[in-house]
């Protein structure tokens, strides 16, 4: 569709004219400018909702909201075209079969072996071994090898040595969805562990010997403590209500040596609404400070984040300081349980704060333990009531921790944002379906690629320059301040206002410091080389040796000019009064700045978030234009290079 306008949310003046394309996998908007032809690509899988707004004199507005919080406002001149686009997008954004998803057509031009290697990058067996199991207290259990006991669990889980197959099967019958207690994290220093399950089907008075034995087995696997905590992450009221449905929670009277604890985290519906409200605040045009803060408070979002964090802190403390094992569950043990177990693990073990470790953590507690990615993030068209930002909340908890402990994580904010992006993008196969069983049935690993390999390949973009494994923040457990601490929770504009560049600090400290580090390293290497050469020269005492040592060793001198401020930033609209004035400044003011952002060099690494993978997919032969950088080496959105970095590394 031609002559479509793309509006800017913050500055209604900045509307761009261009052409809209719909392909099998993307919506693409290409600007009309002769030089620049900036492209905005949106994956269908990212589309969360499409809103057709009232036709105005200028055309028919269409609002596309994405799961990665990008909001695209288009104005299509003809009503009929707008309607067609609308209908098409509705269909395209709601795939019915898995095969429709992008990951099945995405082609990064790797061979079969590379694809396989990619999937092997994260190996959970290795991880459990690293933790220290199997050992005298824990063993691997294959009772579920054909998913016969619990179809949302993986084929292999770890259970206490004293838990026989009989106990496990018996316990699984007493747990919602058959999700029996299994090991999530083992602390080899003190044998304390974090186990996870779903709620017991205890109703008001039902008991199950095997389930009680299961919990005893967990206790016995930790000789250092004579009790375990059982943490129910639901609000007490909800848990009690579940009893009427024949479910519920563990009665301390029936289970010997447990200390039961509620930690009220709200359910998926509350969280869905909370996010909705917060996004509404983000969409306000020119909000006052008051609108923003009240809106944020009313959404309750940060309160929920804090609740998850508090739960993780409680469990980490129990394990690290008290040396007591914890069994965590919620209702079905695949949402709040996953959040809380992974936060606790992150606090406890510095390994999970490394890039590789974080991937492992997500594979373990989210992917292998059957978090329902398809239902929660809408891979396929499904029940809207199942949609909920569960993993988004976990990712935000990580970010909040990164802000409190800037030296403690090997990866940076961009890493988190890109992971979130790809949970929704369905470009890779890691986050499809609802369980390991479903993924194996679909042969995901043979037909799609692994996100982890992709991120790992680009890991230089995801490093945190302040991280040092020998830093004090990285020895052992992290201890976030418990109280007072409300102020420690900040609004994550890097995620929720991700695409509004004007909002963020114009200069990235992370990128600058990474460049500094790289340069230091290069200089050190150069120094070494020169030192050797000097030593050699001194050895050879021949005077008439014309030493042509004047070559530039490495001309990849990174000139760290953070102040190569040809990238002038533009003022936002501070006042309505000025608009009515004839502007006497050279009117190239604004255009000049935006043109700077879109120069050829910058486009190579231009806002990758918006020009996703234009070259790397196979399904776009019919596209009449190509990504400006052309060829197969355009960094995808995951390269994380944004326009500022191009400046910093201008050599």
């Amino acid at each position: 569709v031609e002559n479509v306008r793309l509006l800017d949310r913050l500055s209604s003046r900045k509307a761009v004219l261009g052409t809209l394309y719909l392909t099998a996998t993307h919506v693409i908007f290409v600007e009309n400018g002769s030089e620049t032809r900036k492209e905005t690509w949106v994956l269908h899988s990212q589309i969360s909702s499409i809103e057709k707004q009232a036709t105005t004199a200028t055309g028919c507005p269409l609002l596309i909201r994405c799961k990665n919080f990008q909001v695209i406002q288009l104005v299509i001149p003809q009503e009929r075209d707008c309607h067609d686009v609308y209908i098409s997008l509705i269909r395209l954004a709601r795939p019915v079969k898995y095969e429709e998803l992008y990951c099945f057509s995405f082609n990064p031009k790797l061979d079969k072996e590379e694809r396989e290697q990619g999937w092997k990058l994260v190996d959970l067996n290795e991880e459990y071994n690293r933790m220290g199991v199997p050992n005298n207290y824990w063993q691997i259990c294959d009772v579920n090898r054909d998913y016969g006991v619990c179809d949302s669990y993986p084929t292999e889980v770890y259970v206490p040595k004293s838990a026989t197959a009989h106990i496990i099967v018996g316990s699984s019958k007493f747990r919602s969805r058959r999700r029996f207690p299994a090991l999530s994290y083992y602390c080899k220093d003190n044998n304390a562990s974090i186990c996870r399950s779903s709620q017991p089907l205890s109703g008001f008075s039902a008991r199950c010997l095997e389930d009680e034995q299961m919990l005893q087995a967990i206790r016995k696997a930790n000789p250092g403590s004579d009790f375990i905590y059982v943490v129910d992450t639901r609000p007490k009221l909800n848990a009690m209500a579940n009893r009427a449905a024949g479910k519920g929670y563990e009665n301390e009277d029936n289970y010997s040596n447990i200390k039961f604890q509620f930690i009220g985290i709200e359910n998926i519906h509350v969280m869905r609404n909370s996010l909705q409200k917060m996004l509404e605040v983000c969409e306000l045009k020119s909000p006052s400070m008051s609108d923003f803060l009240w809106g944020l408070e009313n959404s309750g979002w940060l309160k929920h984040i804090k609740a998850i964090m508090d739960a993780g802190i409680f469990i980490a403390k129990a394990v690290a300081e008290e040396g007591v094992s914890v069994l965590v569950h919620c209702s079905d043990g695949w949402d709040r349980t996953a959040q809380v177990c992974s936060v606790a693990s992150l606090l406890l073990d510095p390994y999970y704060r490394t890039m590789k470790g974080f991937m492992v953590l997500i594979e373990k507690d989210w992917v292998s333990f059957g978090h329902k990615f398809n239902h929660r993030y809408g891979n396929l068209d499904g029940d809207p009531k199942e949609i909920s930002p569960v993993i988004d909340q976990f990712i935000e908890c990580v970010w909040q921790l990164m802000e409190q402990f800037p030296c403690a994580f090997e990866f940076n904010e961009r890493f988190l944002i890109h992971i979130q992006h790809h949970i929704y993008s369905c470009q890779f196969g890691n986050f499809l379906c609802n369980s390991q069983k479903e993924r194996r049935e679909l042969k995901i690993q043979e037909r799609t690629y692994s996100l982890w390999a992709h991120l790992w390949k680009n890991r230089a973009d995801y490093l945190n320059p302040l991280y040092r494994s020998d830093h004090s923040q990285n020895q052992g457990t992290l201890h976030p301040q418990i109280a007072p601490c409300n102020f420690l929770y900040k609004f994550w504009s890097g995620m929720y206002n991700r695409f509004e560049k004007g909002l963020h600090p114009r200069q990235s400290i992370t990128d600058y410091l990474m460049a500094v580090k790289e340069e230091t390293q290069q200089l050190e290497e150069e120094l070494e080389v020169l030192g050797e050469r000097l030593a050699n020269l001194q050895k050879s005492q021949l005077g008439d040796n014309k030493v042509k040592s004047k070559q530039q060793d490495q001309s990849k001198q990174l000139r760290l000019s953070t102040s190569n401020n040809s990238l002038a930033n533009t003022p936002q609209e501070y006042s309505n009064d000025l608009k009515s004035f004839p502007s006497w400044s050279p009117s190239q003011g604004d255009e000049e700045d935006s043109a700077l952002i879109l120069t050829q060099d910058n486009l190579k690494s231009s806002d990758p978030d918006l020009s996703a993978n234009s070259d790397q997919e196979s399904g776009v032969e019919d596209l009449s234009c190509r990504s400006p950088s052309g060829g197969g080496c355009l960094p995808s959105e995951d390269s994380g290079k944004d326009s500022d970095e191009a400046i910093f590394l201008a050599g």
Partner: protein
Amino acid sequence: MLRSSQPLTGPNRKRCREDETLLGTILDEGERGFIIDTRSAQAAKQARMTGGGTEPKSSYPQWRRLHRPLERGRPLQESFAKLVEACSDPSLSMDRWLGRLESSRWLSHVKAALSTACLAAQCMDREEAKVLVHGAEGTDTTLLVTALAQVILDPSCRTLAGFQGLLEREWIQAGHPFHLRCAHSAYSHARLKQEAPLFLLFLDCVWQLSRQFPFSLEFGEQLLLSLFDNAYASAYGTFLCNNEKERSLCKVKESTHSLWAWLNRPEEQQKLLNPLYSHNALVIWPSVEPQSIQLWQGLFLRWIRPSQHLDEAWAEIQRLVEEN
């Protein structure tokens, strides 16, 4: 950019030829200027009843007046006190923290101050027009705007030396009544009539700029905290009294030491410099969206939040830069 106090138009719309001539000569033939009045249109109008007022359009035809009300005086002090209270309230649940933060209105004041300073800067830089800033007295919100606008516009004001010069010029010598304004700070129950944290508001705005442009200011948060401390209680005479006349009468220069002399000693300077600084010759335009304006934790939570990990991070940054 010029600053003054309000014209004494009064209820009878008095005129003053000399004033009109003065403002007339500033502008070239056909050129237009802006007057940024830091009072609301209504407040400015009401000021006429007590002898003050605004510049009537007819007498100052080349000037266009814009009103940007900025809070000062008692309400601003209340705002400050409320914020400090909210920060140190241990019983405050997450449910209510943002609401309390909001009802102190402090961040709204920061937003308004930044917006107005940006407006002044925009007039000069984008419209290439001259700007006159005044409120009522010309000693509070006026100085806030002019000083902040210069930090935004002028790279030399962002250097350590330049910033000190700016403070000397736009706050101290311009006659901001420090003695009256910075008497007791936030915890005191005595609500003095003349007390108001304008200078703190200015420092907060500068901090917001440093957060949005981490490479563009030669100094760091430490300097701003130090200035805050010294404005209220100091071993040095720099912030004493209310104006140059009083300082002269009290023989401040003869009997006290200058804060600048202390801060500029090499050992002290080291602590104040921003390791990320790199001269930025351009104008820095901050975002004044609510998401971009944050609570200055380093000041308001200085004694409440653990700073260890953040200090370590800064030490790491310093180390990385120095190694290079």
